[in-house]
């Protein structure tokens, strides 16, 4: 059964147990039991942080949502939850479409392996078969623009070169939903142009983009909607043209 590409988030709450150094030690844990410390929450020795509170978002094909907010406001947590890595404590996340999360450049990157090997590895993680990767290898290699460097270990790459590799490999999958966390700003102007083209391509195919950034110009360029997060509480989704009003609020 096919379905329109969509993201539907209802009353999403994510609580984070933060396990301090203490909580990770078995000795402390056992000692607490033997001395008859209070069981229940205190046993876990973890402080709970509520990263997102009752967040609601509805996105449909063609929507490009920008996330703004201070550090620690829950932008990355929301992206990770949308990628399927974090399970909700309350509420629901419902995503129709193939998800590509570009949250961390180093995902599945093995520094001692060559660029080609890393493209293969990342492609496998993204859900491509070995055959599919081989058939797209030329195109991906071309897109990275790294040429002969692809047969060299990734540890010899600069940060910008790594960004090219990661972006090329991750967007090689025809993703319907692209989740991005800031780092698109890496890379030189040539790469920025290429990345720009590829993002527009995705938008044209009427996928969904969720982009967290502090760069307002970048958000104006790619997004048509914007949401502000503050201490895990989200503002309503507003039109990008009202960005300055949202910031002033």
């Amino acid at each position, binding site marked *: 059964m096919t379905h329109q590409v969509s993201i539907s988030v209802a009353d999403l709450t994510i609580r984070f147990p933060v396990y301090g150094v203490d909580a990770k030690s078995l000795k402390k844990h056992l000692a607490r039991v033997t001395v008859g410390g209070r069981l229940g929450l205190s046993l876990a020795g973890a402080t709970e942080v509520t990263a997102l509170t009752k967040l609601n978002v509805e996105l449909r094909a063609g929507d490009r949502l920008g996330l703004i907010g201070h550090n620690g406001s829950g932008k990355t947590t929301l992206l990770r939850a949308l990628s399927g890595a974090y399970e909700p404590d309350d509420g629901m996340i419902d995503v129709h479409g193939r998800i590509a999360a570009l949250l961390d450049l180093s995902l599945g990157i093995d520094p001692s392996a060559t660029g080609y090997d890393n493209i293969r590895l990342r492609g496998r993680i993204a859900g491509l078969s070995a055959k599919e990767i081989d058939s797209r290898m030329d195109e991906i290699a071309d897109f990275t623009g790294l040429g002969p460097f692809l047969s060299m270990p990734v540890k010899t790459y600069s940060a910008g070169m790594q960004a090219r590799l990661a972006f090329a490999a991750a967007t090689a999958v025809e993703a*319907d939903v692209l989740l991005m966390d800031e780092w698109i700003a890496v890379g030189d102007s040539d790469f920025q142009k290429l990345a720009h083209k590829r993002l527009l391509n995705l938008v044209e195919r009427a996928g969904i983009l969720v982009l967290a950034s502090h760069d307002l110009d970048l958000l104006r360029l790619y997004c048509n909607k914007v949401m502000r997060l503050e201490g895990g509480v989200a503002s309503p989704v507003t039109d990008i043209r009202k960005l300055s009003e949202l910031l002033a609020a």
Partner: protein
Amino acid sequence: MDTATHMLRTGRRGALFEFNMGLRDLSMSLQRIGLAWSLAWHDIVSRYRGSILGPFWITLSMGLMVAGMGVLYARLFGISLHDFIPFVATGIVFFGVISGIINEGCDTFVHAAGMLSQTALPMFTFVWRVVFRNLINLAHNFVIILGVLIYFGYWRTMNLPVAVIGLLFLVINSAWIGMLAAIASARFRDVPQIVISVMQFAIFMTPVFWQPARLGRAHAFLVYNPFYHMLDAVRAPLLGDQPDAHTYGFLALMALVGWALTFTVFTRTRRRIVHYL
């Protein structure tokens, strides 16, 4: 744009729901079993990248160990090389599979932190990755076993199909111990140290280097030693012998109880594992 891919994540909805989500994780990992294989293969390749012998270092070091130990202990125990070398070769190699899966199991999730925190990959995929990695190691070591069995003439009496069934029992049981260790190690960083100590202790308490007959087959050290049963289920048929009568019952029961326990722990911690890391 239409799509068939769908992901649904919700808050807790009772024990049955959590159980089903655990099962879903398992079945997703089996559907994408090729990924676990690719990751395992990549691990082996990257471990030996740049070395001349590559993964055959595994074979070489194991071969030296078997030769040295075989000759020395045969002399110490006063056993003929013909009896002892095949015994110790199979012992070291297959105990290596058990301890490999369990010891490396501790790092299963810790090493996968980057992937687990931004993809919806099934957790079980990483458990299979450790299992496959150790099976690839075994394949390299199997050259030695094959050589020894042929050289000492055991190939005439060995029962390969029964040994393969034994290996299956060995892997199924090591895998749940490894997964339990993986969850516990993600939460408590002391666990890997404990596991390593236990496995070091186990290699001496288990008839890897010494023959069980010297202790008497019904000794409590053997009857209640799970590693003995796991090892014997593979070793005995290779040496043209029969495993202990209780071995299969013991291993089947252990697999059942062990996986039930591990799966219960997994369903209760599945949501939290990514936050442990």
